[in-house]
């Protein structure tokens, strides 16, 4: 029993807690000169194969150096990799690593560091969150039997060590943009010590990146990292980062305004209007890839007629909602793939995403739309305001009664969907992991992504064929027409109505400068400087 555990039991009698002074919040300030503080939420995990959310991803971006990175134009640039070459029509990829990289504990980063990490993540019984991210690699299926049996092997046949610095990856089927996906968390390496005790390891992960852990992960309080002197890549301009863990973005914002925190990555919508006066030019906005939409459950017959879906889409004034509710801090969406992405287009939704109340009303009446509409959403995500606004617009423009139906958590919505309950339209969100069009299209609308995260249950053969064709294209550029055609299928069938693409609305204190957040919600820790 550590000091903390002991404290909690000793301090059960009330008074003792205060006298003994338990509790880990050591000091309010940063870890020292040159350190900056960044607000995050409590990560779910810090093991590379299990970090599927943005908060843990931000911490890993300090501790690890990925094989590839994306530049401002979202082109893939080599980072820890020296070269990545496809052969056999994009089915086999040879990754050569840069020499000289070591882990924070001195262990050399080799092909095995990657192969072992990926095998660990892909092995079903390890139950890693990013398990499905390896499914394009040959041999993935053997590690993940669907009948519940123990896999016969724990190594994917598609991974092969050529020499200490070369990995040969064989894919199950060709994928032209495989090199782009290598920038995501699941393709990071792990040192051999990680596998001895993964639970202990993820409390103090050892990486190959510009920063190393300073102490352990103090759950719900802080994760501290310091610049690593022996790092061979581009070194950061700061001494270290205190990732301060908050429960609420509102509290983060208040602390930045009060000078107790250096960076808040998301300013709550309600405070956007104040941010300009509170922070002046220390309030920043950059585009984000996050997508918000309203989905129709396929099993609800009242939405079966595409005219109903078109009418509902046209009855929504996306611009008014963005301007009023979000004070311009987001962008109205008229496509399913962020126009920022390579190959993506503006307004692929066409006339159906343009506000046209008269046409909407006519179409809705002609298609015999019901006089009540319900929109379900999870109440814990701050969605009420825009759902209510959308509902009010539907009520006014279609002459229906519209009610917002908050469910406590997103998982409750999933349960309702799996039971085929009449939830009505429901909110759907997505943050892409890497800059390829298919990263929006495949998870949300392809048949084999049902039920999660293709919650609406949309399944269209033509769409899936086009995706498959895109994956098999010779180059990433050559796949654009197929993916665009797939997106046109969505415009035709409207399984999900695009509502908004996000923007990163961030703020920072006068102690830092050069603050930027990318399309994937990652704060650039190599660019940020002490002011």
């Amino acid at each position, binding site marked *: 029993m550590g000091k903390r555990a002991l404290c909690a039991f000793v301090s059960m009698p009330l008074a003792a807690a205060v006298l003994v002074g338990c509790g880990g919040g050591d000091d309010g300030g940063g870890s020292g000169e040159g350190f900056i503080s960044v607000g995050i939420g409590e990560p779910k995990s810090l093991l590379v194969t299990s970090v599927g959310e943005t908060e843990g991803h931000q911490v890993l971006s300090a501790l690890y150096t990925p094989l590839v990175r994306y530049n401002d134009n979202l082109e893939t640039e080599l980072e820890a990799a020296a070269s990545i070459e496809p052969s056999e029509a994009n089915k086999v990829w040879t990754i050569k690593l840069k020499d000289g990289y070591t882990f924070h504990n001195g262990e050399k980063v080799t092909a095995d560091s990657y192969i072992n990490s990926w095998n660990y993540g892909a092995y079903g019984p390890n139950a890693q969150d990013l398990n499905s991210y390896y499914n394009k690699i040959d041999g993935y299926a053997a590690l993940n039997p669907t009948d519940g049996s123990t896999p016969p092997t724990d190594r994917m046949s598609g991974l092969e060590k050529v020499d200490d610095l070369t990995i040969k990856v064989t894919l199950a089927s060709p994928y032209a943009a495989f090199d782009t996906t290598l920038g995501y968390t699941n393709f990071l390496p792990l040192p051999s010590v990680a596998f001895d005790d993964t639970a202990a390891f993820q409390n103090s992960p050892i990486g190959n990146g510009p920063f190393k852990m300073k102490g352990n992960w103090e759950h719900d309080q802080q994760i501290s990292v310091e610049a690593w002197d022996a790092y061979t890549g581009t070194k950061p301009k700061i001494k270290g980062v205190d990732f301060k863990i908050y429960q609420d973005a509102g509290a983060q914002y208040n602390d930045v305004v009060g000078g107790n925190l250096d960076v808040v990555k998301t300013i709550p919508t309600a405070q956007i209007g104040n941010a300009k006066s509170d922070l002046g030019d220390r309030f920043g906005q950059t585009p984000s890839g996050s997508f918000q939409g309203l989905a129709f459950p396929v099993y609800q017959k009242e939405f079966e007629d595409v005219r109903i879906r078109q009418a509902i889409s046209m009855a929504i004034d996306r611009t008014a909602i963005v301007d009023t509710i979000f004070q311009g801090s987001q962008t109205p969406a008229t496509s399913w793939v962020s126009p920022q992405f390579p190959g993506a287009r503006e307004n692929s939704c066409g006339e159906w995403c343009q506000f046209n109340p008269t046409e909407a009303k006519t179409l809705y009446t002609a298609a015999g739309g019901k006089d009540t509409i319900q929109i379900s959403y999870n109440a814990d995500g701050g969605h009420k305001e825009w759902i209510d606004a959308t509902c009010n617009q539907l*009520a006014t423009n279609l002459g229906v009664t519209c009610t917002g139906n908050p469910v406590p958590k997103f998982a409750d919505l999933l349960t309702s969907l799996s039971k085929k309950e009449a939830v009505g339209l429901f909110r759907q969100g997505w943050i892409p992991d890497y800059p390829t069009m298919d990263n929006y299209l495949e998870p949300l609308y392809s048949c084999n992504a049902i039920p999660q995260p293709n919650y609406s249950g949309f399944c269209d053969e033509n769409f899936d064929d086009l995706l498959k064709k895109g994956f098999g294209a010779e180059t990433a550029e050559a796949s654009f027409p197929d993916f665009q055609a797939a997106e046109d299928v969505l415009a035709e069938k409207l399984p999900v109505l695009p509502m908004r693409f996000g923007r990163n609305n961030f703020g920072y204190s006068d102690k830092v400068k050069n603050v930027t957040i990318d399309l994937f919600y990652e704060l650039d820790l190599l660019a940020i400087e002490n002011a």
Partner: protein
Amino acid sequence: MSDQNALPPADSVVALAEGEAGAGRARSLASDAWRDLRKNPIAIISAVIIVILVLMAVWPSLFTGADPAACDLSRSLQPPSSEAWFGYNLQGCDIYARTIYGAKASLQVGLYSVIGVAVIAIVLGMLAGYYGGWADAVIARVTDIVLGIPLLLGAIVILSSVELDGVWPVVLALALLGWTSPARIVRSSVISAKGQDYVQAARMLGANDKRIMMRHIAPNAMAPVIVVLTIALGSFISVEATLSFLGIGLKGEISWGADIADATGRVRNALGPVLFPSTFLALTVLAFIMLGDAVREAFDPKLR
């Protein structure tokens, strides 16, 4: 008088006489109280406020011709005007109309929950306090368990498992989770009343348990309960707001609580959408507590 035969004749006469005297006293107590209340300005003001609130709840169109559901984003956060006395909220809805129409759900939640709580608390509290022993132990432990269940957890479970419309899920959740504190108060009042001489006297005169509880202990133990219940009524109306804040409040109803919860995040920029429903909520709570106090004092013979 079902147990008349079991009692010796003399006792039954005494009991009968006492019963008559008791009834007579209650009558005169009630009429005294009524006379007192009519002269008490606080009681009159509270009663008037409550009557107006009830009117609002029953017949909102008497107070406003505006439609609380007619919202237009282009009017978002407009200040008070002759058209909309309290201005418009974020969604561009008329705050005055919403405040008037919100009275119904808020009053229902407060009243129904408090009635539910009172019934559970008085029954369990009296049983525990009067009988003591294992009844007390069992009830006390059940109370502990219910107290130990966090409101959020309990409310989520109840709200997600019942198939009821309107205010009923919230009422059910509040009643099932809110009775513990009043029950404790009832119990401790009963315990101290039980030891009083007049209860001992009644028992010696052969009054049965039910009679002692209803006639002697209940009236004397009620004073603190009324205080707690009137406060509970107010707090239930605001707990409903907190449930909305946590995302598990009323669905599809216009209520003060939900409107306050919606507007709190933007209180720095727009005070009106919080201020007006909050004022009505505060006034309502105020009226009920003041009336409760006045009634209690009027019924308390010791205060004369």
